């Protein structure tokens, strides 16, 4: 069994990004998704700071300190891009005009509750940013995260232990070993990485998993 790398997880999530949509990518692994869009899909990436149509990262020659995304990355604009102010950007997010947001997470509960905004780090202040707005406002919320913590603890839970970002919002989770949907009945596994058995997946998951007979195989190309 070979779990997916960070790039492979982003690649897998990218395959599901529908053509013609408006997509917001969270910092961390999600922002890599834009590198792996299948050929021919025309997508507008929105960033919370108001950029609608984030293009590839700026080359050193292109870099402009005023042209950045919400993660302070220096970016370019794609054709048809425009930029609005923060109040307008979040009106767009909260108003349901973002088709998909792909976020990082610490925990997801089987009812779709998401915890991705605070780790209660000792000596550090809170940091929520736009996470709650995206989780509530986007038409579809998808999550990319490692299936387990570094200590091997589960992240797909019966109920979140960390402070929640939003309730019942997550629709799909891409982990390094599975693709899992959140249905009315709870977690339903769509793909399992090659070489991992359903029971082994269950052993690494706290919440109950429904695993259909025809569950798919999670595969990604070698991305180096």
């Amino acid at each position, binding site marked *: 069994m070979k779990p997916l790398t960070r790039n492979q997880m982003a690649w897998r999530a990218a395959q599901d990004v529908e053509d013609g949509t408006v997509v917001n990518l969270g910092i961390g692994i999600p922002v890599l998704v834009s590198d792996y869009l299948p050929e021919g899909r025309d997508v507008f990436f929105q960033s919370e700071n108001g950029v609608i149509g984030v293009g590839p990262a700026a080359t050193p020659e292109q870099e402009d300190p*005023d042209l*950045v995304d919400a993660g302070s990355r220096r970016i370019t604009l794609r054709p048809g891009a425009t930029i609005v102010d923060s*109040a307008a950007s979040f009106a767009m997010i909260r108003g349901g005009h973002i088709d998909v947001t792909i976020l990082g997470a610490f925990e997801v509960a089987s009812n779709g509750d998401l915890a991705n905004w605070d780790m209660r780090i000792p000596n550090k202040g809170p940091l929520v940013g736009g996470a709650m*707005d995206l989780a509530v406002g986007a038409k579809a919320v998808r999550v990319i995260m490692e299936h387990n913590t570094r200590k091997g603890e589960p992240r797909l839970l019966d109920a979140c232990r960390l402070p929640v970002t939003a309730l019942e919002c997550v629709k799909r989770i891409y982990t390094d070993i599975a693709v899992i949907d959140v249905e009315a009945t709870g977690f339903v596994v769509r793909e399992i990485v090659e070489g991992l058995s359903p029971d082994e997946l269950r052993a690494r998951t706290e919440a109950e998993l429904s695993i259909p007979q025809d569950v798919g195989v999670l595969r990604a190309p070698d991305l180096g």
Partner: protein
Amino acid sequence: MAIDKRVASAAEALDGIEDGATVLISGFGGAGFPNIMIRALRDRDLKGLTLVVNSATHPFSYTHELIEAGQVQKVICSAARGRGKEPSPFEKLWMDGKIELECLPQGTFAERIRAGGAGIPAFYTPVGFGTDLAAGKEVRRFGDVDCVLETAITGDLALIRGDVADRYGNVIFRHAQANFGPAMATAARITVAEVRETQAEPIAPERVQLSGVYVNRAVAVGDAR
């Protein structure tokens, strides 16, 4: 008298601002920080300020200098986490109970400021419902959506950063420089636009991104950031 909102210096742009003021400061994602004005505010050494700023600790902003100098009694923001492992100046003061903190979802932060400028004393938003950040806030269900009640934010002073301002206070922003600036400009009693350059000639109507109605003073700072 022909309107001319250009002032000669950052210090002059702070005339009439006093201890205890609520100050809105723009900037996000590395762009739009009115750093020259923030330094002028620090040099003025006002005390007991409330800062309304998206991040209390952004490395490209000088906001933390105001905090470090002990001028700040409260911060309203969506991000209060320093980058390093050691606590930031803000984090130290906050943990010592010397600075009050109100942490908001970024969209609620922006909308509360927008509401302050738009004469909307309060609104309901689904964002934050059921989370720690909404603890104690009034809730209400509209249709099948649970919401929290949020109130307007207004201030005494807004410091924003733009590219060009004309004598009437009309402002153009470069790229992602606007962010919280336009909303903050509407929500403060006095708004100071720190810009790369000012001009006597009016900006073409279709290029204006922030009406001079919302700008009281404009200061040219060149390429300094």
